[in-house]
């Protein structure tokens, strides 16, 4: 059977552009959540986010990155207004360069988890008379090619075209599990021989009026506009913090990587998805479907719970999610529950929604690269209702060979992915 390995990684997060900044931030136990700067939030109730430090994602910003130049096409004019498109381009370019991507790998596929499309109300203004939008009118001549909204496959397609890839692109829109499922999908393509190289990951941004406004109306964010608002597994936790960014990987067949001398960062060893089949608005309280996802991922990876060195939890910082996940993890680990450290990085960079699973898999490379487990930023007192070994805010040193990452999306879409140290 073919073995999928990670040969490149790229990340754009609240810590900045580039995986090294994410790695450095997590190793330092830093928090990158802060006041929103990319839009005027004076009149908004939600004022903080794990925001990528850029005000306008435009050609100039993309060009100013220290990453390889990204090809631009008139066909994509306007797309960079959607922050997640720009993030995906930079993360993908970094991962591609990291993997030693070249024309020889141009057959690569793209599998990307993406969030909600971004609506551009300003594009409708020329058609708006103050009461109605008159769609039957001819649009203004100078509006951009991408208008009104970005198509759901825009980030994947733009990445494929920017890097000159000829493989197919596939788009996951499984809410907060999308990034993890995209990586799992990529590994599955490699394992069954349907592809030899896949550029995969997730990208999302809800740092826009509709994203922030919609989340606030839903009641998911913490009501405290403070940098420590998101406190996964904490007794006083009261909600999530919206984040944004992108993490991308080059996942490659082992012998293919070896043949070209590419170093491996990790082996994508196991993955699984299950459905709660419970409620759209709440996780299954007993965590039974989440437990099955973790068990099946470990079985596929041939990793026992005793082998497991670390769990990167979905850990949103909401009361229901953390308790259900902790219940599932406790059931998974049984007597080993005190031996397997668990942490969530959402306190440090926010909840990246569709990109969360991918970013957290990037964080799972840090134990392999640096021998450090990321901490749970802002954790003060572990909730007794979460009977697992949650790491505190500071990272800890550890030598681990297998890690598990959970991503549990709205509506009970569960995904678990197991990484092993590179073979």
């Amino acid at each position, binding site marked *: 059977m073919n073995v999928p390995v990670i040969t490149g990684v790229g990340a754009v997060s609240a810590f900045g552009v580039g995986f090294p900044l994410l790695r450095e931030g997590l190793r330092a136990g830093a928090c990158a959540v802060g006041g929103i700067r990319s839009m005027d939030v004076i009149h908004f109730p939600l004022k903080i986010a794990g925001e990528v430090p850029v005000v306008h994602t435009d050609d100039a910003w993309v060009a100013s990155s220290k990453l390889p130049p990204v090809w631009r096409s008139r066909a994509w004019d306007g797309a960079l207004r959607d922050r997640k498109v720009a993030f995906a381009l930079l993360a993908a370019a970094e991962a591609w360069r990291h993997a030693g991507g070249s024309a020889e790998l141009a057959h690569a596929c793209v599998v990307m988890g993406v969030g909600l499309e971004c609506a551009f109300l300003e594009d409708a203004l020329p058609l708006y008379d103050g009461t109605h939008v008159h769609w039957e009118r001819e649009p203004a001549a100078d509006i951009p090619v991408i208008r009104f909204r970005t198509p759901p496959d825009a980030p994947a397609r733009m990445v494929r075209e920017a890097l000159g890839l000829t493989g197919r692109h596939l788009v996951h*829109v499984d809410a907060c599990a999308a990034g993890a499922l995209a990586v799992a999908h990529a590994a599955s393509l490699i394992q069954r021989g349907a592809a030899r190289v896949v550029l995969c990951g997730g990208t999302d941004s809800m740092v826009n009026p509709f994203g922030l406004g919609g989340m606030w109306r839903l009641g998911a964010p913490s009501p405290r506009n403070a940098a420590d608002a998101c406190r996964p597994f904490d007794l006083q936790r009261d909600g999530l913090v919206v984040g944004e960014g992108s993490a991308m990987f080059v996942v490659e067949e082992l012998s293919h990587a070896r043949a070209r001398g590419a170093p491996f960062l990790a082996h994508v060893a196991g993955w699984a998805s299950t459905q709660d089949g419970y409620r759209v608005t709440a996780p299954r309280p007993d965590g039974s479907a989440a437990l099955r996802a973790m068990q099946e991922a470990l079985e596929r990876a041939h990793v026992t719970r005793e082998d497991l060195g670390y769990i990167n939890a979905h850990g949103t910082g909401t009361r229901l999610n953390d308790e259900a996940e902790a219940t599932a993890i406790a059931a998974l680990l049984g007597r080993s529950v005190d031996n397997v450290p668990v942490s969530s990085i959402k306190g440090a960079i926010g909840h990246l929604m569709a990109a969360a699973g991918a970013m957290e898999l990037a964080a799972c490379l840090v134990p392999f690269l640096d021998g450090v487990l990321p901490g749970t930023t802002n954790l003060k007192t572990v909730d007794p209702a979460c009977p697992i070994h949650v790491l505190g805010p500071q990272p800890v040193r550890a030598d681990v060979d297998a890690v598990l990452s959970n991503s549990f999306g709205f509506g009970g*879409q569960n995904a678990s992915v197991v990484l092993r140290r590179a073979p």
Partner: protein
Amino acid sequence: MSVVVIAQAWRTAAGHVVDDVMEQLWTGTPAHHRAQGLPVNVVGSVEGSPPAARTDRFVRRMGAWCLHAAQEAWMTSGIRAGERAGVYLGYGGVRAHWDDLMPALQHQTDGVTLLWERGLRTLHPYWMLNNLSNNVHALAAQALGITGEGMTTGGANAGAVALCQAIRALETRAVDAALVMAHDSLVAPEVVLDMCGRGILNTSADVAGPYDVASAGGVAGEAAAALVLVRQEDAPAGMRVQGVTSAVAGEPHEGIARLLQRLPTHRDVVDGMGAAQRLTDDGERAALGGSSPLTSLQSLLGNTGAASALLQVIAVGQSLRLGRLMPVAKLRNVAPGPLRPVVKAAAFTGRSALCLSSGSPGLVSAIHLEVP
């Protein structure tokens, strides 16, 4: 290992009952309705709204239709839900739903200063869940008790991708039964305007069908569909289905030859992409070659985006089972080229078909069907 379809349902511009819709499709009459307030004359819209349900607060109109279709297909299949069943959804994309957003726009007098206070604050708390990409997936899993593997794919070929993933899951025995769903609506103002701008839709009063010398763009449509798949060993009489997707640089027809290498070589009929654009249509026919009959479900129901592949499985499958070919709608003067576009309904004895659908530029999906 073969995978078969054992149950199906759809909600289309021509109706909701498979047998009734097929009777209309076999006459070659397109399900086009007059467009209101759009820069096109006709659309393939699904009439009416689903009956009110408790799930309405979580799902939009086409999503609700998709749930109806999923429940119908699943109940018809008689499959037991649980951990060994999976859910695979293809979702076209979020539509702006301007009716929701108008209150947020109408009261603005000073840029975005009042966007929250007079606009977004007025949205229903579940507004975001209402627009969630995987809400239909979650609701179907909940309503039917399906708790096995699952995923939601997005984009114009999302239904084909979901179908392919379900087939793979059955082949690898990750699940024993798969509910595959897809829904999409291109009958949304911003989508129609965007597609008109790119020359994909025909804005004239008299739309010519695909493969016609006068083809000049298609018709925006919308639909929802659901299939239930199992391995053939569990249902020997079912229709075999195989699917592949591919993306290529350049025009879609460049990838068709590559796709055909991965599917059975024999096919008795082709249901084409039917974009109704001369260059694309000619390229498609040239890539396929041969002299098989050529139909176009898209000419009859409009461009249904992510739902296209599932609709093709149902309509073309019914054509194979009942031995009748669907004519290409509005086809008056057949453009020269390979294959034989079907001008009039015809009896047919073939047992296999190739269905092609296209996604964003460069993306083509192919499904091969075979009835026992």
